[in-house]
């Protein structure tokens, strides 16, 4: 059997292998070593989740702890990328984009285009998303839709250890700025991951489960809830095709549209808030290019339009889960258009 490691180990390994391969890679972020200037252990943390732990021992000052000055150090990563390094920077929680968004929105994302192709900005910003750990309103958001909205950025949302490794290596080798979103509930997830270096290309969604009745389009942690739902529905004889986007920008439109051509029914599952979101993005794609195949309304299963509540049971209610997905799939599968009703008779 193939080797099993966690999502977190997969990220660490990707960083390790790439740093060994390319001198230009540096890692910056708050406590990504941990213990700078302190009397105790050096490499005390490896980032708040321990993801970079151990790399300092191998690569020394190619990893640098930063002050709590996100604009300065995210910007520094971007500036260094434009002048010859290939930095990977950790923005602890994606919620903190608010204190450094300009450097991403107006600097990194714009350079290549507004300088007429004369700049490359090979920077990767790793950041944490997701609700589910009672971290409340300012540490639980999933803000990938905002980055996906911005031309010039590429956005990666791995759902499993294999993809985490392959997509991170791809991200590091890409010459555009990449935002790499790690769902905090996935770090301990184990899965098969080759030891050797490999890449997963951008813009290729994965069909994690095939099925001809309903297409479920989803990403990140929600891939697992969707799969759970698909298993439940299989008992009822409903076959779901579950599509894991893997990257939201670029987006693999073809895989989605082909699946919809088969099923005619779509549920989009996105943990984020509903408005102007990845959920609406996929729904709009299907309502446009996929319309001729559609046999039922596109249903979105998302968080409500509220901040993330602290209380456990409220937070559980807040998040989409297998039950809600099952209900949505049933709804679209039972939907009868004039057309489908007619064609049955």
């Amino acid at each position, binding site marked *: 059997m193939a080797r099993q490691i966690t999502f977190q180990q997969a990220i660490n390994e990707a960083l390790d292998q790439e740093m060994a391969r390319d001198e230009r890679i540096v890692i910056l972020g*708050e*406590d990504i070593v*941990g*213990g*700078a*200037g*302190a*009397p*105790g*252990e050096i490499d*005390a*943390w490896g980032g*708040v989740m321990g993801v970079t732990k151990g790399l300092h021992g191998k690569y020394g000052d190619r990893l640098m*702890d*930063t*002050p*709590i*000055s*996100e*604009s*300065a150090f995210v910007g520094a990563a971007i500036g260094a990328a434009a002048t010859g390094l290939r930095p990977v920077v950790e923005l602890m929680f994606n*919620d*903190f984009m*608010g*204190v450094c968004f300009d450097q991403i929105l107006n600097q990194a994302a714009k350079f290549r285009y507004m300088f007429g192709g004369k700049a490359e900005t090979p920077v990767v910003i790793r950041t944490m998303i997701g609700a589910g*750990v*009672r*971290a*409340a*309103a*300012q*540490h639980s958001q999933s803000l990938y839709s905002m980055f996906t909205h911005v031309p010039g950025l590429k956005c990666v949302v791995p759902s499993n250890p294999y993809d985490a490794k392959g997509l991170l290596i791809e991200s590091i080798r890409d010459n555009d700025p990449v935002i790499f979103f790690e769902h905090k509930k996935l770090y301990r997830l184990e899965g098969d991951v080759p030891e050797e270096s490999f890449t997963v290309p951008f813009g290729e969604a994965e069909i994690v489960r095939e099925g001809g009745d309903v297409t479920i389009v989803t990403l990140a942690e929600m891939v697992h809830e969707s799969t759970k739902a698909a298993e439940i529905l299989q008992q009822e004889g409903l076959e779901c095709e579950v599509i894991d986007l893997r990257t939201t920008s670029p987006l693999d439109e073809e895989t989605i549209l082909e699946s919809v051509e088969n099923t005619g029914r779509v549920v989009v599952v996105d943990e984020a808030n*509903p*408005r102007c979101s990845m959920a609406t993005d996929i729904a709009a794609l299907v309502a446009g290019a996929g319309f001729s195949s559609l046999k039922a309304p596109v249903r979105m299963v998302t968080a*409500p*339009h*509220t*901040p993330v*509540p*602290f*209380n*456990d*049971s*409220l937070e559980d*209610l*807040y998040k989409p889960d297998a039950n809600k997905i099952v209900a949505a799939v049933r709804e679209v599968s039972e939907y009868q258009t004039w057309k489908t009703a007619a064609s049955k008779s």
Partner: protein
Amino acid sequence: MQLTKDELIEAYRLMKTIREFEEQVHLEFSAGQIPGFVHLYAGEEACAVGVCTHLSREDSIASTHRGHGHCIAKGVDVHGMMAELFGRKTGLCGGKGGSMHVADLDLGMMGANGIVGGGPPLVCGAALAAKRQGKGNVAVAFVGDGGSNQGTTFESLNLAKIWNLPAIFVVENNGYAEATAASYSVGAESIAERGRGFGLPAVQVDGHDFLAVYEAAGEAIERARRGEGPSLLECRLNRFYGHFEGDAQTYRGEDEVKSLREDQDCLLRLSQEATASGEVDPAEFAAIDSEVEALIKDTVEAAKAAPQPDAEDLLTDVYVSY
């Protein structure tokens, strides 16, 4: 600035309340009873109380992720706080905020804040409101040594200065931002020095020394009340626990915490000084200690017995129709 005996005893009571609150939260968190991210203020009590003793409920404070102490010092109800940490309906925020978002606007407590550097701009606004209302009120931002490196904090120092706002920036320099030492992350000679670079009167005090904090804060706050603008106060102090509950603290020196508890305990220091001078009888402190312990125990029990929020609460307190 002289404290009466009653004021001193009240200050001790508040400091003890904070300490006891944090010790109990530590236990309950370890027992898996409190979810989420929790940052304890134990060890730093003299700062919150030394500052807030000068404030009325019409004065505002904005706090940090390490906010329990500031809340208690500002007079926030400990039952409401504990229930909030447990996520209960009876919590100050109805269970929707948790430790990092305890707030009580009616008492001028503008909220703990999960964003490092979130508070200082807000405090400029509260100070502007106070200035316009013209009643001599002030607003205080608590900031950590780590938070002192955030651009929002720097901008706020300058804004408060040029608008001559009744704002006080209290930097709680406990030597660490998470695992990173302040000696590494702060390039200046001191945070006070950096404040002076912005044109603010700025002093550094021993944050374990309640009376020193009380005095320095009093001067800054009085200056602000008189319309003479903002100040910065750097308190050097220590946290007794890890950055957050669950932190293994391997970045700290061997026995660092132990020796802090022995030599740098602001509560001990205050009570020892007050009893040594004969001003307060040790028995009085002991009596307060047991009252406070009983009170905090009660908050824990009440919180555990309190109801969970209702499912409908998910959709209240925000515009929702979709």
